[in-house]
Protein backbone atom coordinates (compact mmCIF):
# COMPACT_ATOMS: atom_id res chain seq x y z
CA UNK A 1 0.00 0.00 0.00
CA UNK A 2 2.89 2.26 0.82
CA UNK A 3 4.19 1.78 -2.69
CA UNK A 4 0.86 2.90 -4.04
CA UNK A 5 1.06 6.06 -1.93
CA UNK A 6 4.45 6.89 -3.37
CA UNK A 7 3.10 6.27 -6.84
CA UNK A 8 0.14 8.57 -6.34
CA UNK A 9 2.44 11.22 -4.89
CA UNK A 10 4.55 10.95 -8.01
CA UNK A 11 1.51 11.46 -10.22
CA UNK A 12 0.36 14.42 -8.18
CA UNK A 13 3.78 16.01 -8.63
CA UNK A 14 3.69 15.18 -12.31
CA UNK A 15 0.31 16.87 -12.71
CA UNK A 16 1.42 19.84 -10.62
CA UNK A 17 4.41 20.36 -12.90
CA UNK A 18 2.09 20.41 -15.89
CA UNK A 19 -0.26 22.94 -14.34
CA UNK A 20 1.50 26.19 -15.37
CA UNK A 21 1.49 25.08 -19.00
CA UNK A 22 -2.28 24.63 -18.81
CA UNK A 23 -2.93 28.11 -17.39
CA UNK A 24 -0.91 29.90 -20.07
CA UNK A 25 -3.21 28.63 -22.80
CA UNK A 26 -5.92 30.97 -21.49
CA UNK A 27 -3.62 33.98 -22.04
CA UNK A 28 -2.91 35.20 -25.60
CA UNK A 29 -0.71 32.69 -27.39
CA UNK A 30 2.95 33.20 -26.55
CA UNK A 31 5.36 33.26 -29.47
CA UNK A 32 9.04 32.63 -28.97
CA UNK A 33 11.84 34.32 -30.85
CA UNK A 34 15.18 32.48 -30.79
CA UNK A 35 18.09 34.88 -30.95
CA UNK A 36 21.59 33.40 -31.40
CA UNK A 37 24.01 36.14 -30.34
CA UNK A 38 27.77 36.48 -29.84
CA UNK A 39 28.83 35.95 -26.21
CA UNK A 40 30.03 39.57 -25.98
CA UNK A 41 26.41 40.68 -26.45
CA UNK A 42 25.22 38.79 -23.34
CA UNK A 43 24.54 41.76 -21.05
CA UNK A 44 23.36 44.22 -23.69
CA UNK A 45 21.03 41.81 -25.51
CA UNK A 46 19.57 40.48 -22.25
CA UNK A 47 18.55 44.05 -21.41
CA UNK A 48 17.30 44.72 -24.95
CA UNK A 49 15.28 41.50 -24.69
CA UNK A 50 13.58 42.70 -21.53
CA UNK A 51 12.60 46.04 -23.10
CA UNK A 52 11.51 44.29 -26.29
CA UNK A 53 9.28 41.84 -24.39
CA UNK A 54 7.75 44.70 -22.41
CA UNK A 55 6.99 46.60 -25.62
CA UNK A 56 5.66 43.50 -27.43
CA UNK A 57 3.30 41.51 -25.19
CA UNK A 58 2.90 37.90 -26.24
CA UNK A 59 6.47 37.60 -27.51
CA UNK A 60 9.14 35.80 -25.51
CA UNK A 61 12.75 36.27 -26.56
CA UNK A 62 15.07 33.32 -25.91
CA UNK A 63 18.79 33.93 -26.21
CA UNK A 64 21.57 31.51 -27.05
CA UNK A 65 24.85 33.26 -26.21
CA UNK A 66 28.10 31.58 -27.28
CA UNK A 67 31.16 32.24 -29.41
CA UNK A 68 29.96 33.28 -32.90
CA UNK A 69 31.83 30.30 -34.40
CA UNK A 70 29.93 27.92 -32.08
CA UNK A 71 26.58 29.52 -32.97
CA UNK A 72 27.39 29.27 -36.69
CA UNK A 73 28.11 25.55 -36.29
CA UNK A 74 24.91 25.00 -34.32
CA UNK A 75 22.87 26.72 -37.04
CA UNK A 76 24.60 24.64 -39.73
CA UNK A 77 23.67 21.50 -37.76
CA UNK A 78 20.01 22.54 -37.69
CA UNK A 79 19.52 24.48 -34.44
CA UNK A 80 16.28 26.49 -34.57
CA UNK A 81 17.42 30.12 -34.75
CA UNK A 82 15.39 33.12 -35.91
CA UNK A 83 18.16 35.71 -35.69
CA UNK A 84 21.96 35.49 -35.82
CA UNK A 85 24.08 38.31 -34.38
CA UNK A 86 27.78 37.68 -35.01
CA UNK A 87 30.92 39.37 -33.73
CA UNK A 88 32.50 39.15 -37.17
CA UNK A 89 31.53 39.06 -40.82
CA UNK A 90 33.28 35.72 -41.42
CA UNK A 91 30.71 33.55 -39.62
CA UNK A 92 27.88 35.53 -41.25
CA UNK A 93 29.43 34.97 -44.70
CA UNK A 94 29.72 31.24 -44.06
CA UNK A 95 25.99 31.05 -43.30
CA UNK A 96 25.13 33.18 -46.36
CA UNK A 97 27.22 30.85 -48.54
CA UNK A 98 25.39 27.89 -47.01
CA UNK A 99 22.02 29.56 -47.82
CA UNK A 100 21.04 29.67 -44.14
CA UNK A 101 20.81 33.44 -44.47
CA UNK A 102 19.65 35.29 -47.58
CA UNK A 103 21.94 37.59 -49.54
CA UNK A 104 21.80 41.30 -48.63
CA UNK A 105 19.69 40.96 -45.47
CA UNK A 106 22.56 41.16 -43.00
CA UNK A 107 23.38 44.62 -41.66
CA UNK A 108 25.98 45.99 -39.26
CA UNK A 109 24.44 47.18 -36.01
CA UNK A 110 27.40 48.13 -33.80
CA UNK A 111 31.16 48.27 -33.52
CA UNK A 112 33.42 47.15 -30.72
CA UNK A 113 37.14 47.45 -30.09
CA UNK A 114 39.80 45.76 -28.02
CA UNK A 115 41.22 46.53 -24.58
CA UNK A 116 43.65 44.78 -22.22
CA UNK A 117 42.05 43.66 -18.93
CA UNK A 118 43.82 42.79 -15.65
CA UNK A 119 42.63 41.63 -12.23
CA UNK A 120 42.16 44.60 -9.87
CA UNK A 121 45.34 43.82 -7.86
CA UNK A 122 47.39 43.31 -11.04
CA UNK A 123 49.29 40.13 -10.03
CA UNK A 124 51.44 40.24 -13.18
CA UNK A 125 52.42 43.90 -12.49
CA UNK A 126 51.58 45.03 -16.03
CA UNK A 127 51.96 48.79 -16.53
CA UNK A 128 51.80 49.27 -20.27
CA UNK A 129 50.83 47.45 -23.44
CA UNK A 130 54.40 46.21 -24.09
CA UNK A 131 54.29 44.30 -20.78
CA UNK A 132 52.08 41.68 -22.47
CA UNK A 133 55.36 40.24 -23.80
CA UNK A 134 56.98 40.18 -20.33
CA UNK A 135 58.23 36.59 -19.86
CA UNK A 136 56.40 34.53 -17.27
CA UNK A 137 53.06 36.32 -17.14
CA UNK A 138 49.94 34.22 -17.68
CA UNK A 139 47.64 35.25 -20.50
CA UNK A 140 44.26 33.65 -21.15
CA UNK A 141 42.81 34.68 -24.48
CA UNK A 142 40.10 33.42 -26.80
CA UNK A 143 40.99 30.71 -29.32
CA UNK A 144 41.90 31.70 -32.87
CA UNK A 145 38.48 30.49 -34.14
CA UNK A 146 36.62 32.82 -31.77
CA UNK A 147 36.11 36.29 -33.29
CA UNK A 148 37.72 38.14 -30.37
CA UNK A 149 40.66 35.72 -30.45
CA UNK A 150 41.16 36.48 -34.13
CA UNK A 151 40.90 40.26 -33.58
CA UNK A 152 43.39 40.03 -30.70
CA UNK A 153 45.93 38.20 -32.88
CA UNK A 154 45.43 40.77 -35.65
CA UNK A 155 46.02 43.58 -33.15
CA UNK A 156 49.21 41.82 -31.97
CA UNK A 157 50.34 41.69 -35.61
CA UNK A 158 49.97 45.47 -35.75
CA UNK A 159 51.91 45.83 -32.47
CA UNK A 160 54.87 44.06 -34.09
CA UNK A 161 55.50 47.43 -35.78
CA UNK A 162 56.23 49.64 -32.76
CA UNK A 163 57.21 46.89 -30.26
CA UNK A 164 59.53 44.76 -32.41
CA UNK A 165 58.97 42.07 -34.99
CA UNK A 166 58.72 39.17 -32.56
CA UNK A 167 56.37 40.93 -30.13
CA UNK A 168 53.37 38.81 -31.16
CA UNK A 169 55.32 35.55 -30.73
CA UNK A 170 56.49 36.60 -27.28
CA UNK A 171 52.93 37.48 -26.24
CA UNK A 172 51.51 34.22 -27.60
CA UNK A 173 54.24 32.32 -25.72
CA UNK A 174 52.67 33.68 -22.52
CA UNK A 175 49.24 32.25 -23.40
CA UNK A 176 48.29 29.45 -20.99
CA UNK A 177 44.80 28.81 -22.36
CA UNK A 178 42.76 29.43 -25.50
CA UNK A 179 39.15 29.74 -24.37
CA UNK A 180 35.99 29.02 -26.28
CA UNK A 181 34.27 32.39 -25.89
CA UNK A 182 35.01 35.84 -24.55
CA UNK A 183 32.96 35.46 -21.36
CA UNK A 184 35.04 32.43 -20.33
CA UNK A 185 38.14 34.59 -20.81
CA UNK A 186 36.75 37.41 -18.65
CA UNK A 187 35.77 34.91 -15.93
CA UNK A 188 39.32 33.55 -15.69
CA UNK A 189 40.72 37.07 -15.33
CA UNK A 190 38.06 37.96 -12.76
CA UNK A 191 39.01 34.86 -10.76
CA UNK A 192 42.61 36.09 -10.84
CA UNK A 193 43.83 32.91 -12.54
CA UNK A 194 45.16 34.93 -15.49
CA UNK A 195 47.38 38.01 -15.28
CA UNK A 196 45.84 39.67 -18.32
CA UNK A 197 43.80 39.21 -21.49
CA UNK A 198 42.72 41.03 -24.60
CA UNK A 199 38.94 41.36 -24.85
CA UNK A 200 36.33 43.86 -26.12
CA UNK A 201 35.88 47.23 -24.45
CA UNK A 202 32.26 46.18 -23.88
CA UNK A 203 33.47 43.27 -21.73
CA UNK A 204 35.45 45.70 -19.59
CA UNK A 205 32.29 47.79 -19.15
CA UNK A 206 30.37 44.66 -18.06
CA UNK A 207 33.15 43.78 -15.57
CA UNK A 208 33.91 47.05 -13.75
CA UNK A 209 35.98 45.22 -11.12
CA UNK A 210 38.79 44.76 -13.65
CA UNK A 211 41.65 47.13 -14.49
CA UNK A 212 42.23 48.05 -18.12
CA UNK A 213 45.10 49.15 -20.35
CA UNK A 214 43.94 51.03 -23.44
CA UNK A 215 45.09 49.96 -26.91
CA UNK A 216 45.77 53.06 -29.08
CA UNK A 217 43.51 53.40 -32.12
CA UNK A 218 46.29 52.79 -34.66
CA UNK A 219 47.07 49.39 -33.05
CA UNK A 220 43.47 48.48 -32.25
CA UNK A 221 40.98 46.45 -34.28
CA UNK A 222 37.44 47.55 -35.02
CA UNK A 223 34.95 44.69 -34.76
CA UNK A 224 31.88 45.16 -36.97
CA UNK A 225 28.92 43.11 -35.71
CA UNK A 226 26.38 42.01 -38.35
CA UNK A 227 22.82 40.87 -37.55
CA UNK A 228 20.42 38.98 -39.83
CA UNK A 229 17.23 36.90 -39.78
CA UNK A 230 17.54 33.23 -40.68
CA UNK A 231 16.16 32.27 -44.11
CA UNK A 232 13.98 29.44 -42.81
CA UNK A 233 12.74 31.24 -39.69
CA UNK A 234 9.08 30.60 -38.92
CA UNK A 235 9.00 33.97 -37.16
CA UNK A 236 10.24 36.26 -39.93
CA UNK A 237 7.87 39.05 -38.85
CA UNK A 238 9.05 38.94 -35.23
CA UNK A 239 12.68 38.73 -36.32
CA UNK A 240 12.26 41.89 -38.40
CA UNK A 241 10.62 43.68 -35.45
CA UNK A 242 13.47 42.67 -33.13
CA UNK A 243 16.18 43.78 -35.57
CA UNK A 244 14.35 47.09 -36.05
CA UNK A 245 14.35 47.51 -32.28
CA UNK A 246 18.09 46.81 -32.05
CA UNK A 247 18.72 49.45 -34.74
CA UNK A 248 16.30 51.97 -33.18
CA UNK A 249 17.59 54.79 -30.99
CA UNK A 250 16.29 52.97 -27.91
CA UNK A 251 18.16 49.78 -28.81
CA UNK A 252 21.32 51.68 -29.75
CA UNK A 253 21.20 53.57 -26.43
CA UNK A 254 21.24 50.27 -24.53
CA UNK A 255 24.15 49.00 -26.64
CA UNK A 256 26.13 52.18 -25.99
CA UNK A 257 25.42 51.93 -22.28
CA UNK A 258 27.17 48.53 -22.37
CA UNK A 259 30.25 49.94 -24.10
CA UNK A 260 29.49 49.35 -27.78
CA UNK A 261 29.85 52.06 -30.42
CA UNK A 262 27.39 52.73 -33.26
CA UNK A 263 27.89 50.97 -36.59
CA UNK A 264 29.56 52.98 -39.26
Amino acid sequence: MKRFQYLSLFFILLCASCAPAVTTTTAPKLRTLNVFAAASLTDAFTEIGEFFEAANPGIAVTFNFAGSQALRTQIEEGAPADIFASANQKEMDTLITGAFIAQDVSQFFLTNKLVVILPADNPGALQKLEDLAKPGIKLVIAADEVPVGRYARQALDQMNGPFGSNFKDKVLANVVSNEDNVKQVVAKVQLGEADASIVYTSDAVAAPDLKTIEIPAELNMIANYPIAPLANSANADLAATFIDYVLSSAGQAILQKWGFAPAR
Partner: protein
Amino acid sequence: MKKVKQFFSQFLHDGHLTWLFILPGALLLALFVLPLFAVFLRASDVNFFRNAFSAQAFKALQLSLLTSSVTTMITILLGTPFAYILARWSFRFKSWVELFVDLPIVLPPSVAGLALLIAFGRRGLFGSVLSVFGISLPFTGAAVVLAQTFVAAPLYVRSARIGFAHVEKQLEEAARVEGANQWQLFYEVMFPLAGRALFSGAILTWTRALGEFGATILFAGNLEGVTQTMPMAIYLGFERNLGIALALSVVLVIVSVFLLMLTRRLEKQGQD
Protein backbone atom coordinates in the same frame (compact mmCIF):
# COMPACT_ATOMS: atom_id res chain seq x y z
CA MET B 1 -2.23 -4.47 -5.46
CA LYS B 2 -2.53 -8.25 -5.65
CA LYS B 3 -4.59 -8.01 -8.81
CA VAL B 4 -1.94 -5.85 -10.44
CA LYS B 5 0.70 -8.44 -9.59
CA GLN B 6 -1.43 -11.22 -11.02
CA PHE B 7 -1.95 -9.21 -14.17
CA PHE B 8 1.78 -8.76 -14.69
CA SER B 9 2.66 -12.36 -13.88
CA GLN B 10 0.20 -13.43 -16.56
CA PHE B 11 2.05 -11.21 -18.98
CA LEU B 12 5.30 -12.97 -18.24
CA HIS B 13 3.87 -16.28 -19.34
CA ASP B 14 2.18 -14.89 -22.36
CA GLY B 15 4.52 -15.62 -25.25
CA HIS B 16 2.99 -13.28 -27.83
CA LEU B 17 3.29 -10.29 -25.50
CA THR B 18 7.07 -10.45 -25.37
CA TRP B 19 7.21 -7.33 -27.52
CA LEU B 20 6.16 -5.42 -24.42
CA PHE B 21 9.63 -6.16 -23.15
CA ILE B 22 11.52 -6.06 -26.40
CA LEU B 23 10.19 -2.73 -27.70
CA PRO B 24 11.29 -0.49 -24.79
CA GLY B 25 14.67 -2.17 -24.77
CA ALA B 26 15.05 -1.79 -28.52
CA LEU B 27 14.22 1.91 -28.29
CA LEU B 28 16.85 2.47 -25.63
CA LEU B 29 19.43 0.42 -27.48
CA ALA B 30 18.73 2.40 -30.66
CA LEU B 31 19.38 5.59 -28.70
CA PHE B 32 22.78 4.22 -27.65
CA VAL B 33 23.81 2.83 -31.01
CA LEU B 34 22.37 5.15 -33.68
CA PRO B 35 24.36 8.31 -32.76
CA LEU B 36 27.63 6.34 -32.77
CA PHE B 37 26.66 4.81 -36.10
CA ALA B 38 26.07 8.33 -37.46
CA VAL B 39 29.50 9.45 -36.26
CA PHE B 40 31.18 6.50 -37.97
CA LEU B 41 29.20 7.09 -41.15
CA ARG B 42 30.01 10.81 -41.34
CA ALA B 43 33.65 10.35 -40.32
CA SER B 44 34.33 7.77 -42.99
CA ASP B 45 35.27 9.92 -45.94
CA VAL B 46 38.47 10.42 -47.90
CA ASN B 47 39.91 12.77 -45.31
CA PHE B 48 39.50 10.42 -42.34
CA PHE B 49 43.12 9.36 -42.10
CA ARG B 50 44.42 12.83 -42.80
CA ASN B 51 42.25 14.12 -39.93
CA ALA B 52 43.00 11.26 -37.56
CA PHE B 53 46.73 11.67 -38.12
CA SER B 54 46.81 15.48 -38.18
CA ALA B 55 49.30 17.17 -35.86
CA GLN B 56 46.54 18.50 -33.60
CA ALA B 57 44.84 15.12 -33.31
CA PHE B 58 48.15 13.43 -32.61
CA LYS B 59 49.11 15.92 -29.88
CA ALA B 60 45.71 15.53 -28.25
CA LEU B 61 45.90 11.74 -28.41
CA GLN B 62 49.40 11.75 -26.95
CA LEU B 63 48.42 14.08 -24.12
CA SER B 64 45.26 12.09 -23.37
CA LEU B 65 47.17 8.80 -23.20
CA LEU B 66 49.88 10.33 -21.02
CA THR B 67 47.60 12.11 -18.54
CA SER B 68 45.11 9.26 -18.23
CA SER B 69 47.95 6.77 -17.65
CA VAL B 70 49.45 8.97 -14.93
CA THR B 71 45.99 9.36 -13.42
CA THR B 72 45.52 5.58 -13.37
CA MET B 73 48.91 5.01 -11.76
CA ILE B 74 48.27 7.60 -9.05
CA THR B 75 44.84 6.09 -8.49
CA ILE B 76 46.25 2.57 -8.06
CA LEU B 77 48.98 3.78 -5.69
CA LEU B 78 46.65 5.78 -3.46
CA GLY B 79 43.41 3.92 -4.08
CA THR B 80 44.48 0.33 -3.38
CA PRO B 81 45.35 0.72 0.31
CA PHE B 82 42.37 3.00 0.71
CA ALA B 83 40.00 0.44 -0.80
CA TYR B 84 41.53 -2.20 1.50
CA ILE B 85 40.78 -0.06 4.54
CA LEU B 86 37.21 0.51 3.36
CA ALA B 87 36.70 -3.22 2.73
CA ARG B 88 38.23 -4.59 5.93
CA TRP B 89 38.43 -2.02 8.68
CA SER B 90 35.57 -0.56 10.63
CA PHE B 91 35.86 2.88 12.14
CA ARG B 92 33.76 5.87 13.10
CA PHE B 93 32.29 7.93 10.28
CA LYS B 94 33.10 5.15 7.80
CA SER B 95 29.80 5.61 6.01
CA TRP B 96 30.61 9.29 5.60
CA VAL B 97 34.01 8.47 4.14
CA GLU B 98 32.36 6.05 1.72
CA LEU B 99 29.84 8.70 0.74
CA PHE B 100 32.57 11.22 -0.12
CA VAL B 101 34.48 8.59 -2.09
CA ASP B 102 31.42 7.83 -4.22
CA LEU B 103 30.30 11.45 -4.54
CA PRO B 104 32.50 12.39 -7.55
CA ILE B 105 30.85 9.56 -9.54
CA VAL B 106 27.48 11.31 -9.45
CA LEU B 107 28.73 14.91 -9.31
CA PRO B 108 28.49 16.89 -12.58
CA PRO B 109 32.05 17.33 -13.93
CA SER B 110 31.47 21.08 -14.25
CA VAL B 111 30.95 21.21 -10.48
CA ALA B 112 34.20 19.26 -10.06
CA GLY B 113 36.09 21.69 -12.31
CA LEU B 114 34.73 24.77 -10.58
CA ALA B 115 35.44 23.27 -7.14
CA LEU B 116 39.01 22.41 -8.13
CA LEU B 117 39.56 25.93 -9.44
CA ILE B 118 38.13 27.53 -6.30
CA ALA B 119 40.26 25.23 -4.11
CA PHE B 120 43.56 24.89 -5.97
CA GLY B 121 43.46 27.88 -8.32
CA ARG B 122 45.96 30.68 -7.84
CA ARG B 123 43.38 32.63 -5.83
CA GLY B 124 41.81 29.46 -4.47
CA LEU B 125 41.47 28.39 -0.85
CA PHE B 126 44.77 26.49 -0.93
CA GLY B 127 46.30 28.34 -3.88
CA SER B 128 48.31 30.72 -1.71
CA VAL B 129 49.81 27.77 0.22
CA LEU B 130 50.79 26.11 -3.05
CA SER B 131 52.28 29.33 -4.41
CA VAL B 132 54.68 29.44 -1.43
CA PHE B 133 56.24 26.32 -2.94
CA GLY B 134 56.17 27.90 -6.36
CA ILE B 135 53.33 25.68 -7.52
CA SER B 136 50.60 27.06 -9.75
CA LEU B 137 48.22 24.34 -10.90
CA PRO B 138 45.63 25.84 -13.29
CA PHE B 139 46.43 25.59 -17.01
CA THR B 140 49.06 22.85 -16.50
CA GLY B 141 49.25 19.14 -17.29
CA ALA B 142 49.12 18.55 -13.53
CA ALA B 143 45.72 20.23 -13.47
CA VAL B 144 44.52 17.82 -16.18
CA VAL B 145 45.69 14.85 -14.07
CA LEU B 146 44.11 16.30 -10.91
CA ALA B 147 40.77 16.81 -12.67
CA GLN B 148 40.88 13.29 -14.12
CA THR B 149 41.79 11.76 -10.76
CA PHE B 150 38.97 13.61 -9.02
CA VAL B 151 36.44 12.30 -11.51
CA ALA B 152 37.81 8.83 -12.32
CA ALA B 153 39.57 7.49 -9.20
CA PRO B 154 36.32 6.70 -7.31
CA LEU B 155 35.54 4.05 -9.92
CA TYR B 156 38.74 2.18 -9.05
CA VAL B 157 38.28 2.55 -5.28
CA ARG B 158 34.75 1.24 -5.60
CA SER B 159 35.74 -1.76 -7.68
CA ALA B 160 38.76 -2.56 -5.49
CA ARG B 161 36.71 -2.26 -2.30
CA ILE B 162 34.19 -4.78 -3.60
CA GLY B 163 37.03 -7.04 -4.76
CA PHE B 164 38.69 -7.01 -1.33
CA ALA B 165 35.37 -7.49 0.44
CA HIS B 166 34.71 -10.66 -1.57
CA VAL B 167 37.89 -12.38 -0.35
CA GLU B 168 36.75 -14.94 2.20
CA LYS B 169 37.40 -14.13 5.80
CA GLN B 170 38.61 -17.71 6.50
CA LEU B 171 41.51 -17.32 4.08
CA GLU B 172 42.51 -14.17 5.89
CA GLU B 173 42.25 -15.87 9.28
CA ALA B 174 44.25 -18.84 8.01
CA ALA B 175 47.02 -16.50 6.88
CA ARG B 176 46.91 -14.82 10.27
CA VAL B 177 47.28 -18.18 12.00
CA GLU B 178 50.25 -18.90 9.77
CA GLY B 179 51.77 -15.72 11.18
CA ALA B 180 51.37 -13.31 8.28
CA ASN B 181 51.69 -9.66 9.23
CA GLN B 182 49.44 -6.89 7.91
CA TRP B 183 51.62 -6.26 4.84
CA GLN B 184 52.06 -9.93 3.96
CA LEU B 185 48.35 -10.46 4.35
CA PHE B 186 47.66 -7.60 1.97
CA TYR B 187 50.39 -8.32 -0.55
CA GLU B 188 50.35 -12.14 -0.64
CA VAL B 189 46.71 -12.96 0.03
CA MET B 190 44.35 -10.07 -0.63
CA PHE B 191 46.13 -8.52 -3.61
CA PRO B 192 46.27 -11.70 -5.76
CA LEU B 193 42.75 -12.79 -4.86
CA ALA B 194 41.21 -9.40 -5.61
CA GLY B 195 43.44 -8.95 -8.66
CA ARG B 196 40.69 -9.08 -11.27
CA ALA B 197 38.55 -6.54 -9.49
CA LEU B 198 41.55 -4.24 -9.17
CA PHE B 199 42.41 -4.64 -12.84
CA SER B 200 38.91 -4.02 -14.14
CA GLY B 201 38.60 -1.04 -11.77
CA ALA B 202 41.85 0.36 -13.13
CA ILE B 203 40.60 0.02 -16.69
CA LEU B 204 37.33 1.74 -15.80
CA THR B 205 39.28 4.60 -14.24
CA TRP B 206 41.54 4.79 -17.26
CA THR B 207 38.58 4.93 -19.67
CA ARG B 208 36.82 7.56 -17.60
CA ALA B 209 40.03 9.64 -17.36
CA LEU B 210 40.47 9.36 -21.12
CA GLY B 211 37.00 10.82 -21.62
CA GLU B 212 37.17 13.53 -18.96
CA PHE B 213 36.07 16.89 -20.30
CA GLY B 214 33.95 19.07 -18.04
CA ALA B 215 36.29 19.37 -15.08
CA THR B 216 39.34 19.70 -17.31
CA ILE B 217 38.09 22.59 -19.43
CA LEU B 218 37.27 24.65 -16.33
CA PHE B 219 40.35 23.81 -14.26
CA ALA B 220 43.05 23.20 -16.88
CA GLY B 221 41.91 25.39 -19.77
CA ASN B 222 42.78 24.61 -23.36
CA LEU B 223 46.25 24.80 -24.87
CA GLU B 224 47.33 22.53 -27.70
CA GLY B 225 49.99 20.08 -26.54
CA VAL B 226 49.74 21.17 -22.88
CA THR B 227 46.16 20.79 -21.69
CA GLN B 228 44.18 20.05 -24.86
CA THR B 229 43.10 16.43 -24.42
CA MET B 230 41.10 14.43 -26.97
CA PRO B 231 37.64 15.34 -25.62
CA MET B 232 38.71 19.02 -25.64
CA ALA B 233 39.96 18.78 -29.22
CA ILE B 234 36.64 17.16 -30.17
CA TYR B 235 34.65 19.96 -28.51
CA LEU B 236 36.67 22.71 -30.18
CA GLY B 237 37.00 20.77 -33.42
CA PHE B 238 33.21 20.87 -33.64
CA GLU B 239 33.55 24.60 -34.33
CA ARG B 240 36.76 24.65 -36.32
CA ASN B 241 37.23 21.40 -38.12
CA LEU B 242 34.38 18.91 -37.88
CA GLY B 243 36.54 16.35 -39.68
CA ILE B 244 39.11 16.25 -36.87
CA ALA B 245 36.35 16.12 -34.24
CA LEU B 246 34.71 13.17 -36.01
CA ALA B 247 37.97 11.31 -36.54
CA LEU B 248 38.94 11.74 -32.88
CA SER B 249 35.47 10.64 -31.80
CA VAL B 250 35.83 7.45 -33.82
CA VAL B 251 39.22 6.79 -32.21
CA LEU B 252 37.77 7.32 -28.71
CA VAL B 253 34.78 5.07 -29.41
CA ILE B 254 37.04 2.27 -30.66
CA VAL B 255 39.38 2.59 -27.66
CA SER B 256 36.40 2.59 -25.28
CA VAL B 257 34.85 -0.49 -26.91
CA PHE B 258 38.15 -2.32 -26.71
CA LEU B 259 38.67 -1.48 -23.03
CA LEU B 260 35.09 -2.41 -22.14
CA MET B 261 35.47 -5.76 -23.87
CA LEU B 262 38.61 -6.34 -21.85
CA THR B 263 36.90 -5.59 -18.52
CA ARG B 264 33.90 -7.76 -19.43
CA ARG B 265 36.21 -10.63 -20.25
CA LEU B 266 37.96 -10.24 -16.92
CA GLU B 267 34.66 -10.14 -15.06
CA LYS B 268 33.54 -13.29 -16.84
CA GLN B 269 36.75 -15.11 -15.98
CA GLY B 270 36.29 -13.99 -12.40
CA GLN B 271 32.89 -15.66 -12.27
CA ASP B 272 34.13 -19.01 -13.61
